[in-house]
């Protein structure tokens, strides 16, 4: 992963291309359940993911990152926008126009891993049945070949094939998350949407799962969309990162660029707020005023302007578009003042840099 020189054009093919994605949830009230407004959970998201890469999506609660992931898989009906996915034959298919059956066929290639390994596995099903279920649904193989596949998958996630007969409650959080990954891999997908896959895990176990995900990505040339609120984790695993705020992507670029050269004021605040696990770290937190606004009643113009330290009159009037910066075609920012602001990057302590370098 040597994308430090961002000017080097990445020639990998685009696997997923999302344009203008919107997902509004109606607010109903009154006796007739009349729609009185909309929660604009996702309000115009553009992103693409190249084959074999990991795109991280970060943001605070309610920013729409999870809804974006689910809308891409069409677990929600889209309000607007297109989602193009490169099928195995190489053709870009617009998922938003597919019927239920067509969607079912293509879902083999797109899987999801959930945050909570305790509620995402049916407690009444053995590990074998859980992992083989996608194969059964898609009518792949017979009993014997499915069992072989289950053992193979368990071994791929670092577990013994012998656990297949056991039940979810017998496993720890980290092991359950690995079972969840094995299940997601059953159909040989090409894209996996990982929704906070390590957030519920203790740190030592979190590293186990992250390492397995990285190894599997290399072995099976998987493409990940990694959704999480923890920027340290996202930065570790992602090639590029999109930062979301109130339903929109405000900045999207290579992960090194994001912390070395943040261009959106929200990214700057987010980076400064993450407590760095080293007492030598010099950090001046940028404390934002107020709270994240209600997505049913978002401010006009740039959603971030009421809390932004650098807001100007234009920011409350016009929605800034997500466009590349002048010096880097791969660095997208949605800010009226992106070209003029000098924002504070993250500078890890020298001592740590030396340790890693040496």
């Amino acid at each position, binding site marked *: 992963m040597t994308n430090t020189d961002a000017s080097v054009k990445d020639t990998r093919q685009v696997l997923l291309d999302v344009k203008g994605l919107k997902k509004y949830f109606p607010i109903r009230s009154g006796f007739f359940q009349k729609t009185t407004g909309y929660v604009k959970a996702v309000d115009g998201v553009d992103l693409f993911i190249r084959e074999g890469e990991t795109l991280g999506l970060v943001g605070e609660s309610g920013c729409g990152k999870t809804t974006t992931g689910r809308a891409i898989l069409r677990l929600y009906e889209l309000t607007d926008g297109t989602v193009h996915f490169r099928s195995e034959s190489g053709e870009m298919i617009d998922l938003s126009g597919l019927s239920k059956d067509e969607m079912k066929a293509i879902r083999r290639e797109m899987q999801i891993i959930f945050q909570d390994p305790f509620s995402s596995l049916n407690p009444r099903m053995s590990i074998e049945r859980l992992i083989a279920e996608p194969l059964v649904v898609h009518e792949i193989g017979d009993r014997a070949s499915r069992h072989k596949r289950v053992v193979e998958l368990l071994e791929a996630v670092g577990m013994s094939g012998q656990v297949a007969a056991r039940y979810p409650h017998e496993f720890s959080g980290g092991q359950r998350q690995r079972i969840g990954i094995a299940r997601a891999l059953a159909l040989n997908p090409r894209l996996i949407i990982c929704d906070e896959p390590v957030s519920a895990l203790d740190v030592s176990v979190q590293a186990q799962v992250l390492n397995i995900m990285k190894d599997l990505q290399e072995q099976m040339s998987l493409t990940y969309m990694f959704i999480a609120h923890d920027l340290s984790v996202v930065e570790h695993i992602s090639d590029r990162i999109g930062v979301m705020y109130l339903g929109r992507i405000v900045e999207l670029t290579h992960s090194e660029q994001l912390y070395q050269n943040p261009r959106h004021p929200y990214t700057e605040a987010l980076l400064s707020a993450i407590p760095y696990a080293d007492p030598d770290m010099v950090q001046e937190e940028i*404390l934002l005023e107020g709270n994240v606004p209600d997505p049913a009643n978002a401010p006009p113009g740039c959603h971030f302007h009421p809390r932004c330290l650098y807001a100007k009159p234009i920011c409350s009037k016009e929605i800034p578009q997500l466009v590349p910066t002048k010096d880097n075609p791969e660095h997208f920012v949605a800010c009226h003042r992106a070209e003029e602001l000098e924002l504070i990057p993250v500078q890890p302590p020298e001592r740590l840099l030396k340790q890693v370098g040496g």
Partner: protein
Amino acid sequence: MAVEQKELAVGQELVRIEDLHTQFFTEQGIVKAVDGVTFSIEQGKTLGVVGESGCGKSITAMSIMRLLPEPRGRIVKGKITFFPPQQNNINQTSVDITALDRHSSQMRGIRGRHIAMIFQEPMTSLNPVYTVGDQIIEAIQLHQQVDRDTARARAIEVLEQVDIPDPERRISEYPHQMSGGQRQRAMIAMALSCYPSLLIADEPTTALDVTIQAKILRNMRDLQQEYGMSIMLITHDLGVIGRMADEVLVMYVGKKVEQAEVRNIFHNPLHPYTQGLMKSIPLIGLKDKKLVPITGSVPSPFNLPTGCYFAPRCPQAMDRCRREAPPETEPEPGHFVSCWLYK
């Protein structure tokens, strides 16, 4: 102002926990949630307590507060000595918290008044049917002989200190009218309303977004500077520890495995478990750092290994580790570790 303040001397011992054993008596057997832990909390300092789920960090706090679900969970051995700070230059007599009846007026006088606690989920300590102001006023009047107006003024003052905007109006709001971050701050305000000498914060920001967390942590630090109170900060987040703690205690399955000044914990961790934690956290800007997870998982409390509890997961385990539990040593001044490597 009628509310009296205590005189705090930074560095003096405030609470001493000696060989604390807290156990839970369940149908499946006895859980040794805290298994012989000794440490001190100093005045004006922040003691960070880290460890993974089930390591006994919260139960240690509940033992100090005497908030255990007795008799199902109780302190079976050990001493918790509270040294009340000087008042008007008069030394106060120390109290053994473990010897008190948890419902006694003496314990109630310590709990909330001298030692206050905040939790991860603010709704565990805020009552939804009373306004935030009423709850803070009640806490103040419970512990201090002041009239309602004085208490109300003090409540507004603490709400302001924790950065709740427009406290005069917000004081009459109910908890549900506030956002998660504000509720957390209202709870801190309630805890601070009696100028406690020790604030025990159990994962105070874990449920919050990072930008809100940053504000609350800053708030806690500012208030500590102002009042000179001690903080016992319980968290699994090494980032929060790195930013807040002076001294760090690392716990594993009910035992203290290491204790040192914060720099030593991060830069020179001695216990293989602490070393493992440091190697398993990703850090921004260090993408090339290879994460080395700790293998295996935390043992079940009903099926603990003999010898050192960490031995089955320890990359440096020796035969002795699997036979005998290691005693605590002090390989360098102020740096304590329980591991046979240093014996």
